[in-house]
């Protein structure tokens, strides 16, 4: 966008911790804000004003909890300690080294983990102002200018604090142009490598599989050529997520703008599960859920929460652990879809794979499972780990399409004709049983 403006904004005062207040205020963020980005702020504007005379409670919520409770110190971070140490170590090393060539770091994570606040924190400890590049629409020339200018000039000491000469450039988003034309981006980075003075850090989200941004923009050869270092983060563990959520919930119910009872542990757990490692999403979901009473989430939440606990406790052997882990990403979903869980829909062939390479559990783990009567014992199978109905539902295909795809692919999974007979029978049954569902085909098709 051509009408991008250079905005000199200070960071919002609310996120200052007591200790770091001084430190924080000296960092002046030089942000490129495209006009489109401003809409983000609009959520802060209260739509409706109403006055209440409550002591110590703000009249209305002005910001998202995820912003309000952004981590203020390293200890607040929900990421593994080792990783934080790694990042910190890297920055320390390169800031002190003052080497000729500017080092470049690539932070990769699978989901939104809140690296950016985390990153700013690790910086805070070092008393370094840093420059941020936030733009999704800017031209590549703007990007280049930013890099070079940020490199050349120090941050402005608007607040009268001493301006440190040490700084780090942090790039959070890339202009879209680069996804089409990665080579210009490579050129800019190479150029920076030659003339840059301070460490450069890129943050890349690797949420999409396959052709990820990271692979496109930072090819292996480029990484080798420019000596780019990689630090990747895993999804936030549910336990640490629950810890964060509990803290926020407690604090909010005491001091927040409206009273609510602290959600039970099971509700928090299911929120943590359904967010699949996205801590910001989890906090937002929590805030949304707490707008009203969370009691109504209990009925479903409790049962499932328990089930998930049980699952965790049953992780005895290593083998089962790996199984539950792989399914963890898909399973936690339906549980709390009511308050904005992640979109966990399955890609078609993944869904098919889940059926065709069906995983079954050891029956000894499910001693309470009902058994078939003796005359049907030949149909007895080990208990399923996944629920096939869930898979179909998540694939967002009509049953007819799904069976058609299954039918096309299932033959290769058989070696014995007698087993095959049974599966063909089932397919035939399925077709016969779903004739009355054909009506819904029309409405499905129209979408």
């Amino acid at each position: 966008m051509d009408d991008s403006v250079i905005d000199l904004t200070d960071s919002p005062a609310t996120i200052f911790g007591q200790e770091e207040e001084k430190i924080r205020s000296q960092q002046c963020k030089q942000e490129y804000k495209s006009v489109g980005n401003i809409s983000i702020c609009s959520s802060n504007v209260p739509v409706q004003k109403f006055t209440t005379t409550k002591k110590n409670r703000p009249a209305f919520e002005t910001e998202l909890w995820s912003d309000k409770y952004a981590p203020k110190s390293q200890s607040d971070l929900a990421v593994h300690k080792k990783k934080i140490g790694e990042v910190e170590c890297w920055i320390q090393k390169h800031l002190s080294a003052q080497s000729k060539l500017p080092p470049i770091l690539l932070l990769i994570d699978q989901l939104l983990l809140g690296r950016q606040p985390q990153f700013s924190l690790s910086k805070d400890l070092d008393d370094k102002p840093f420059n941020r590049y936030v733009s999704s629409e800017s031209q590549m020339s703007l990007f280049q200018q930013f890099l070079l200018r940020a490199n050349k000039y120090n941050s402005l000491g608007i607040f009268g604090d001493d301006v440190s000469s040490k700084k780090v450039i942090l790039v959070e988003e890339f202009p879209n142009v680069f996804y089409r034309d990665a080579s210009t981006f490579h050129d800019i980075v190479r150029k920076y490598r030659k003339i840059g003075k301070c460490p450069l850090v890129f943050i890349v989200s690797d949420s999409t599989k396959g052709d990820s941004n990271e692979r496109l923009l930072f090819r292996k050869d480029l990484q080798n050529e420019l000596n780019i270092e990689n630090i990747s983060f895993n999804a936030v563990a549910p336990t640490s997520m629950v810890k964060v959520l509990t803290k926020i919930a407690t604090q909010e119910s005491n001091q927040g703008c409206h009273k609510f009872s602290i959600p039970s542990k099971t509700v928090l757990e299911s929120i943590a599960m359904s967010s699949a490692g996205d801590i910001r999403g989890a906090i937002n979901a929590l805030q949304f859920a707490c707008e009203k009473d969370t009691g109504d989430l209990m009925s479903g939440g409790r049962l499932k929460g328990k089930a998930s606990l049980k699952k965790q406790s049953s992780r005895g052997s290593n083998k089962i652990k790996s199984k539950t882990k792989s399914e963890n990403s898909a399973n936690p979903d339906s549980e709390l879809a009511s308050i904005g869980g992640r979109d966990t829909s399955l890609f078609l062939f993944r869904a098919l794979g889940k059926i065709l390479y069906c995983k079954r559990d050891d029956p000894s783990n499910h001693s309470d499972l009902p058994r078939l009567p003796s005359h049907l014992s030949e149909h007895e199978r080990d208990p399923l780990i996944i629920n096939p109905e869930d898979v179909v539902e998540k694939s967002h295909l009509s049953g007819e399409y799904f069976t058609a795809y299954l039918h096309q692919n299932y033959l290769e999974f058989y070696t014995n004709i007698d087993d095959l007979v049974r599966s063909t029978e089932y397919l035939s049954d399925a077709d016969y049983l779903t004739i009355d569902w054909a009506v819904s085909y029309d409405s499905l098709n129209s979408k």
Partner: protein
Amino acid sequence: MSLWVDKHRPTSLHKLDFHKEQAAHLKKLVQGGDFPHLLVYGPSGAGKKTRIMCLLREMYGSGVEKLRIENHTFTTPSNKKIEISTISSNYHIEVNPSDVGNQDRVVIQELIKTVAQVNQLETSTQKDFKVVILTEVDRLTKDAQHALRRTMEKYMSTCRLILCCNSTSKVIPAIRSRCLGVRVPAPSIEEICQVLQNICKKESLNLPSELARRIAEKSNRNLRRAVLMCEACRVQQQNFTADQEVTEPDWELYLKETAQLIAQQQSPKRLLEVRGRLYELLTHCIPPDVIIKGLLQELISNCDGQLKTEVVQTAAYYEHRLQMGQKAIYHLEAFVAKFMAIYKRFLEEGIADLF
């Protein structure tokens, strides 16, 4: 130059070659001035369509023979455009709603509405209703059939429906009870021979009666097929000879080969091959019930006495499924798989008995 089938199709009721008594009944029906909705059913190649056209000619005169093909476009409630072509004259319109698959309900409702809302132009000289011919009614979805039932009652004053299908078993009872059923049975071998002789006479050819008989037998009492085969023989050889080879349709040979493949080897891999061939047949518009029948006839010849009952029972089971279900391939494949399993067990037992 048109095919013999079309060229020598009878155009009036009294020119029909067989089921003359029925033709007379139909004539009387028309002479009465009005008639109810008709449901014409019978095997393919028995002359259902011919009879319907003769009936229309009897009713409206030669005007019905001025045909035009029109393309209609309808919009479904979900905003999807569907196209269908119809054959029509001033007095009637013929359409095969199952051409559009699942959307046939829209075609039934919209098309009949547009036709029925326009009255006949000259009521003084003509009948005061139009005729809508729906073919392949047995392939309509349940939805469409219910829509049809309502439409039938609503527009009774301005239009008559003639429904045409192979079997009434897939037509809902509500429709069957609202129509006068007209069954057109397949012609006998002798009748087919007679028709072939008549056609050849008109073409000034000499057809040996033995050849005519062989063609008639190979045609499975399907007159259309018999005439086509006869013409095919003519193309092979200018003058007919009694011992001339009668070529069968290539899909039948293909079906026989498929049956052989099944009998040769019983494995999932072979089933995959067979599936490919079944798809091939289905995409060439061979009806699935014909396929299962053809397969059964070939496969049963490989079977022992006691095995036959089991195989036939399986075939009957899956044929029923075919009629009830939606996707033929599932049921065809299930039948083939089941046969493979039965046959393999039979072979293994046979080998075990040997030693």
